[in-house]
Structures are given as structure tokens and as C-alpha cells.
């Protein structure tokens, strides 16, 4: 079924929303009224429902199947969380109501903070970052602020391993830092010697992911942290992979100064096809004074207060976004945290790691794991098993789609050739993993038996087959335009 754009349907006279007549009063626009039509179409409610229902049916989703994207933690999104976020007492709150009328909302923020601090052992948390990359920015700006405060503002180098997420160097650059790469060793970890070598008095901090993007725990992490601190720098941990550790390891014990937590990954708020997320950032005592506004504090009388302006000796580096953070996401995450509890979270990280190792074990029958196990919560393979088959990692992934499963993350981390990074999460059942492994192993056999066309022609059963990305980038068409004759006729 083809579904035209909304602009190619309907008629500007129609509407799917009935509204009363505006009061018949002279306008007070000062002559700034819009002239001429906007160019929108118009559809009745049933047409809009059908349009977006049909579009949704062209999507894959975790509700419908396994979604083993490495580094993305696509776990089950409980509907309880959605219900809680929609309670009128949470959903219908204006950010600037008098604080006396939003004590429950402030309590939610405070409780969430206590959870995040309890799980990480850190000193403070900035709730307001809107997503992971925004949390990175928060942490790195706190580092800049701390350096400035101690008169070390001229340190302008940040160490970033080659296997880092792209957001890490981009964030460092946004804070005026220069990125210095750090190579990995053949165990898939940061090369400790090279790392120590790279540390000098220009280094402001290091941005590390742990477990790293190869799915491995940086087992030299204590030494790395010590070296960072001895060099007078700060240790930023990318929290994208926190799901492997939650309920088991306190981040503070690893010597971390700042880490963002993706509520939309680790704490199961839905990814929504690209957001919204939330990236609260936990901070060590050294960075805590610089946390951005606003803050929520518990008062002696049992109430809560939202601090929106500098008070006392706080030294916030500023403000990260409008209002008070991703409140709707906070409610969902808190609902999840309360549901899981400390015991459930520990079980979850254990199951996440178990599931990944199970994939690693089963798929290693044919696929080529990049490093020796055990892995943490994701399993990394390279494309050696496809050597000589004429099938690329991309082709292999597209053939998986035809088997009804979403592909893993491809070509990342960059340190591995033709990488295939698979993160099952704890919410996949053994049956689901087995079905996935059976399908992947069968495809691998098929690839190695010489049927390359099966792969290069995939996918076949999707709403669209492979799309021409080059064309899209060379001649960008980024919006609908009314057809030329219609334009002329206007």
C-alpha cells in the first residue's frame, strides 16, 4: 500500500478539529496579520487517523520484534510508565505554576535524583540535559568550569579513544577542547601505556565509554582513572552502556567525575523513533558545585524547592535548556526504577550480560567474534566470516530484515572491520535469542555457500527496498513543494 504525503491529500477547506467561532472583536496585531495562505492541506479526523496508522505500519519497533542495535539498549518500554506520565497531575502542569502547586512534581525530580545518586554513588546530579549528547555537554562544561575555577583553564585537550561514540569528540569540540585520540590494544581495550603517554598538563579530561563500544569492560579502569587524576585531569564516562553495570557497580568507585545516564536507554523510557530522551548527568564532588540550574532541593519541612537562580555558594556553569528538564521522561524513568528496585536492576544487568554472552557463544559457531570473551552487555563480531563471499556487513544486515529481525549496529565501532555490534538487553527471552541466532546462522551458512545475490538484493519484503542515499544527499529534497502547475495557478 502506497501512502501519499499529507500534503497530497485532502483540501484546505477541511479540518479534523472543530473550534468555536473566535470572538468578534477588532484585532490588536498592529498590522502584522498574515496575508495569503500558509500552504497546509486539510483532512478530516478519520483521514488523519488512517494516514498515520498506515505510516506506523511501515515501521519496525521493539513492540513487534527483537531490535539488537548495539549501543542503543532497545529494551521493553512498560506501558505503566506511559500511564503514569499521563496522569493529569503530571501531564497538565505548567512549568511556571507557583511552587506550592507543584510539590508532587518536585518530589518526582528529587526522588529520581536520589535513585540516580544511589545507583552511581556520585555527589550530585544535573537532571536537565535533554539527551545523552546533551549530558556529555553538561559533564564537559562542568569540567571546563572546574578547571577555570582552579585556574587551569588553559588545559584544552581531551583524550578520546578511537572507538568512542561520535558524540564524544563533537561534544569536546563544543566546549572548546581539542581531541587527542587514544589507540586501542588487541584486547579491544584502551592501550594503557599509550594512554599514559597521552596524558600531559594540557589534558583537561578523558572521555571514555565503559563497558566500551566493543562491549568489553575496560579492566584497567582503576589504573586509567588514577592516571587521569594524577595528571590533574577529569574523568568523563559516557553512560550509554550503563545497562551492563546498573545495580552492580557504583560508578563513583571507578573514579569517575561525570557520567550522563540515558533514561531512554537504561531506564526504559521509549525511544520514540528518535526521542525525546533525557540525559541526567551525575557529578563527583570535584564537579558538583558547577552543576547547571535548575536544582531541586528538599526542605526541612518536607517540601521541595526549585532553585532557578544562583543562591549561596553554588557556581553553576549556566543553564542547559528551557524550563526544568525532560519532566515527562523523568516520570517514566522513576516509574521504571520503582518497579525494578535495586534487586531488579541488578538482575537486569546480569540478564543483559548473560543474553549477550549467549549470543556471543551461539553465533561464534560461524560468525567471527572480534575479541576474546566474555563480553559485557553486547557482542561484537567482524566480517571475517564473510571474507570472499561477496557479501558485506551491509548486505548481511539487509538480508536479516527479510527474516523479520532488525539488524544489529553496523560498522561501529570503527576499530573493527565490518563491525556487527549486537545488544540484546535483558528483556529478550531465550526463545527470542534462539530464533535470532537460528536466523543469523542460517544466513551465514547461506552467505558462505555462495548465494551472494540473495544478500545484495535484500531486502525484498519491506515497504521499500534499498534506498538511494547518495541521491538523497546530492540533490537534497527536504520538504514537499506544491506541484508547479498548482503554484502557477495560485
Amino acid at each position, binding site marked *: 500500500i502506497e501512502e501519499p*504525503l499529507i500534503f497530497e491529500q485532502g483540501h*484546505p477547506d477541511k479540518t*479534523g*478539529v472543530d*473550534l468555536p467561532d473566535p*470572538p468578534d472583536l477588532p*484585532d*490588536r496585531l*498592529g498590522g*502584522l*496579520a498574515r496575508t495569503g495562505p500558509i500552504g*497546509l*492541506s*486539510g483532512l478530516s479526523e478519520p483521514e*488523519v487517523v488512517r494516514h*498515520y496508522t498506515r505510516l*506506523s505500519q511501515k*515501521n519496525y519497533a*521493539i513492540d*513487534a520484534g527483537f531490535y539488537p542495535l548495539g549501543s542503543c539498549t532497545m529494551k521493553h518500554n*512498560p506501558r505503566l510508565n506511559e500511564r503514569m506520565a499521563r496522569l493529569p497531575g503530571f501531564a*497538565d502542569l*505548567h512549568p*511556571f*505554576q507557583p511552587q*506550592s502547586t507543584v510539590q508532587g512534581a518536585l518530589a518526582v525530580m528529587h526522588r529520581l535524583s536520589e535513585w540516580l545518586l544511589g*545507583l552511581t554513588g556520585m555527589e550530585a546530579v544535573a537532571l536537565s540535559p*535533554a*539527551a545523552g*549528547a546533551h549530558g556529555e555537554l553538561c559533564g564537559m562544561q562542568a569540567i571546563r568550569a572546574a578547571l577555570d575555577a582552579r585556574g587551569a583553564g588553559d588545559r584544552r585537550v581531551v583524550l578520546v579513544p578511537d572507538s568512542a561514540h561520535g558524540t564524544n*569528540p563533537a561534544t569536546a569540540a563544543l566546549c*572548546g577542547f581539542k581531541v587527542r585520540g587514544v589507540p586501542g590494544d588487541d584486547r579491544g581495550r584502551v592501550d594503557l601505556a599509550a594512554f599514559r603517554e597521552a596524558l600531559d598538563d594540557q589534558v583537561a579530561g578523558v572521555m571514555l565509554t565503559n563497558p566500551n563500544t566493543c562491549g568489553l569492560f575496560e579492566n584497567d579502569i582503576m589504573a586509567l582513572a588514577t592516571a587521569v587524576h594524577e595528571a590533574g585531569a577529569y574523568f568523563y564516562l559516557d553512560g550509554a552502556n550503563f545497562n551492563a553495570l546498573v545495580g*552492580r557497580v557504583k560508578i563513583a568507585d571507578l573514579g569517575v567525575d561525570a557520567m550522563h545516564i540515558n533514561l*531512554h536507554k537504561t531506564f*526504559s523510557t521509549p*525511544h*520514540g*523513533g*528518535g526521542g*525525546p530522551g533525557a540525559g541526567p548527568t551525575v557529578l563527583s564532588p570535584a564537579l558538583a558545585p558547577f552543576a547547571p540550574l535548575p536544582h531541586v532541593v528538599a526542605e526541612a519541612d518536607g517540601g521541595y524547592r526549585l532553585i532557578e537562580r544562583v543562591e549561596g555558594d553554588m557556581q553553576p556553569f*549556566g543553564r*542547559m535548556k528551557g524550563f526544568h528538564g*525532560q519532566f515527562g521522561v523523568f516520570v517514566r524513568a522513576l516509574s521504571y526504577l520503582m*518497579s525494578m528496585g*535495586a534487586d531488579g536492576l541488578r538482575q*537486569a544487568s546480569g540478564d543483559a550480560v*548473560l543474553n549477550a554472552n549467549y549470543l556471543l*557463544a551461539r553465533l561464534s559457531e560461524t560468525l567471527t567474534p572480534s575479541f576474546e570473551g*566474555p563480553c*559485557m552487555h553486547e557482542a561484537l563480531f567482524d566480517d571475517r566470516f564473510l571474507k570472499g563471499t561477496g557479501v558485506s556487513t551491509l548486505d548481511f544486515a*539487509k538480508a536479516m530484515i527479510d527474516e523479520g529481525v532488525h539488524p544489529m549496529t553496523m560498522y561501529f565501532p570503527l576499530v573493527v572491520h565490518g563491525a556487527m555490534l549486537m545488544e540484546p538487553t535483558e528483556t529478550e*527471552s531465550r526463545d527470542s535469542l534462539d530464533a535470532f541466532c537460528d536466523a543469523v546462522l542460517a544466513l551465514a551458512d547461506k552467505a558462505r555457500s555462495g548465494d551472494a545475490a540473495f544478500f545484495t538484493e535484500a531486502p525484498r519484503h*519491506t*515497504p521499500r527496498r534499498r*534506498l538511494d*542515499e547518495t*541521491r*538523497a*544527499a546530492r540533490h537534497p529534497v*527536504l520538504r514537499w513543494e506544491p506541484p508547479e502547475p498548482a503554484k502557477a495557478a495560485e
Partner: protein
Amino acid sequence: MRYLPLTDHDRRAMLDRIGAGSVDDLFCDVPAETLADAPFDALPEHATEMAVERDLSALATRNRAAGSGPCFLGAGAYRHHVPATVDHLIQRGEFLTAYTPYQPEVSQGTLQTLFEFQTQVALITGMEVANASMYDAATGVAEAAAMASRVTRRKRVLVAGGVHPHYAETTASFLRYTDIKVEVLDPDPVGIADLIGRVNEGHACVVVQNPDFFGRLSDLSALASECHAQGALLVVAVAEPVSLGLVKPPGEMGADIVVGEGHAIGSSLNFGGPGVGLFATRKKFVRHMPGRLAGETEDQDGRRGWVLTLSTREQHIRREKATSNICTNSGLVALAWTIHMSLLGEAGFSRLARLNHGKAVELVGLLEGVSGLEVVTPTFFNEVLVRLPGHDAAAVVETLAGKGILAGVPLSRFWPTFPELADGLLVCATETTEREDMEALARALTEALA
């Protein structure tokens, strides 16, 4: 635990297959000293769905829902009525639980809606292109300032006094450690006229808001001309997108980048977040743009389809040279926005805007009759600044809250150190404001100011 599918029997069998003795063995790379046995005693154990629901519902009732009485709050967050259809559709698992559309063949639903979103944003702002959303308007303005600097290769940004203080602060904060200097002018409830004289050839951009934070509508054309004469860009923030159904769009007044806050269309207030940043610009600047873009292309059978495109601007390809570090954005809020806009359509969107303006005109008419109250904003869309000379506006707001009326937002909440703003109150009306709400406000204010 209801969310965990593995049984102990599964775990045992899987460990056997792996060749490990226990789950703990899989954590052998973690320093043993950090794997203390029970370091999380202070945190609660798991809870049943019933218990969580009871607990959180009790917290929710400790808040007063904005809609439970007359509500005149705006200041960047506008309470609009969202059709039930919108929330129904965004809760479909295929939208709600999908990832960023990296595999376009199985993500055409998300991609097409993003393309529709981009088009709608471009249409209502009067701009050529728009991206697939920012976190919110505040971060969008910050990114716009950075983008203007990339486009112009200049390092100074001027933020007008009528820009939402959160946008201004976020921009200053975002650029604090870059080589771009941000100058934020003092709050200015009376207009942008004097801005024109301040623009010079050192500026990458001037940032204004329309209607501004104090509700005032301005013609930006002269400012735009002056900016362009000086080689600077004009960045226009729109905190209330519904205004664009009635007010001349920034694109028609010469804006180079338009940033909007979209949550007011399609979403509940949610205590201010998540929002959705609208971000539109001229086609020639598109490769300087931050954020994700959906683009049209064809599949191998020649059928029209959509992909994420121009990703060489983005962090996952470009790393430290990226236009922004943004990755996760506001996909679902953007979807809600698009569905609500599609339901409204040309006729509905225009009518909604006219209704909002009409309600505000009606409200202002009533307030003008309240003695001791002065309406400051001469031309407006759905929000105005009023002064309560001799009164602390925040105290008046507290008094009225005690009577069940959320009267407005006092300026002192943003500028506690500006005593001359202490009597200022922002008051807003939308389509949800009823005549009896307005009368209740006027009565209560008359009492409070007597």
C-alpha cells in the same frame, strides 16, 4: 520481575552453553573491589505495578493540574487543547518503541512523518527548509547562534531583551566555552526599535523573539534589512507557534533562521518538558544546519522513499567537526506536532490562531477595566504584560493561587534582581480560556489590588 523473561532454568541452560559457572563469572573483568555484594541497600526493592501506581498517583495529586481551574500561564509554555487522536496515534508501538530510523527500509513511517514535519515547519515559518527537530526552543536558539557563526565566520552574537530569558541563558551557556561571545541585552518589554542601531559588522547574528517574551508583536523587516546590510543573520525565536496561523511569519520579514518551541501543538504541558525545537532556515545554509534531516529519494525499484540525509554534518560521521553534537532529538514530540498540525490543517490552524487572539483581546479588554492594573503590551497575539503598580506580582499570584486561579507568570521569577520588574505579570489566554475564567481573574485581581 514482570519485565524479565529469563527463568532460573533459562539462566542455567544459557550459562552451560556459554561455559560459565555463574552470571557473576561474566563480570570477571570488573575490579572485584567495585563489585561489593550489596552496596545498594539504601534503594528500595522492586515494587508491584499496583504499588507504583498508587505511589505515583499520590504524588500526582500533590500537584494542582493547570486545567483544574482558570489558568493564564504562558511565558513560553502555552496550554492548548490537544485532540485525543494525537495521543492515541503516538502511542502506537510502531511509533513509540522504534529507534532512530537508521534502517530506512523498515522505518518509512517515521521518516515520512519527519519529512511532513519538516515541511509543516517550513510552511508556517515561511522558510525554505527545516530540520527534524531540536530538543526545544532554548537549545535551538543556542544552536542557531552557533550556526550563524559558522555561516558568517563571525564571533559575536547579540540577543535582544525581548527573548525568553531561558533561551538567552541557554544560548550564553551553550557558547560559553567557545570562541563566540554572546551579549544578552537587559529585559525590554517595549520593543526592538533600538536594536537596529546596535547591529554592526562584527555580529554573526541578532536574536529576537516574536511575539516577544512580553507578548509584543513587532515588524522585523527593518531589523532584518539592517542585519543583512551589516552581513549578520537574523535569528527569530517563536515561543508560541500557534501565532504563526495569524501573524506574518518570520520568513516573510527577512529571518535567516527561525527557531520555535513546538510543544504547544500536540503535547501536554508536562511541567515544561520534553519540548520540541522547530528549526528552519534558508536552503543555502542547509549544510551548516544542526540536527537530523529526512530527505526524499528512490528505492532500487524506483519508488519514492525517505532516508536520513546530509549526515556528513552530524557527529556520528563528522565527529569533532560536526555542526552539533545532537543525536537523540524529539522524534515523538515532533510526531505529535505533525499529527496535530495535520488534524488542524490550513483552515483549523488559522482558526485556532484567530481564536487565541480573539480570546486574548477579550481578556485584555476585561483587564483594562481593572483599576490599579496597567496593560503594557500594545500589540500582541495571545499574551500581554500587565503591571500592578505598587504590588509585588509574585505575591498577587500566590494570593490568587489560593483562590484556585493561576493568574499568570510574574517577571520576578526570571529577574529577581530587577526591582523595576517586580510589578510585572505575564497573562495569557488560549482557546481553552473561557469567558467565566476571565471574569473570575478580573474580579480576583480587582480584589487583590484594592
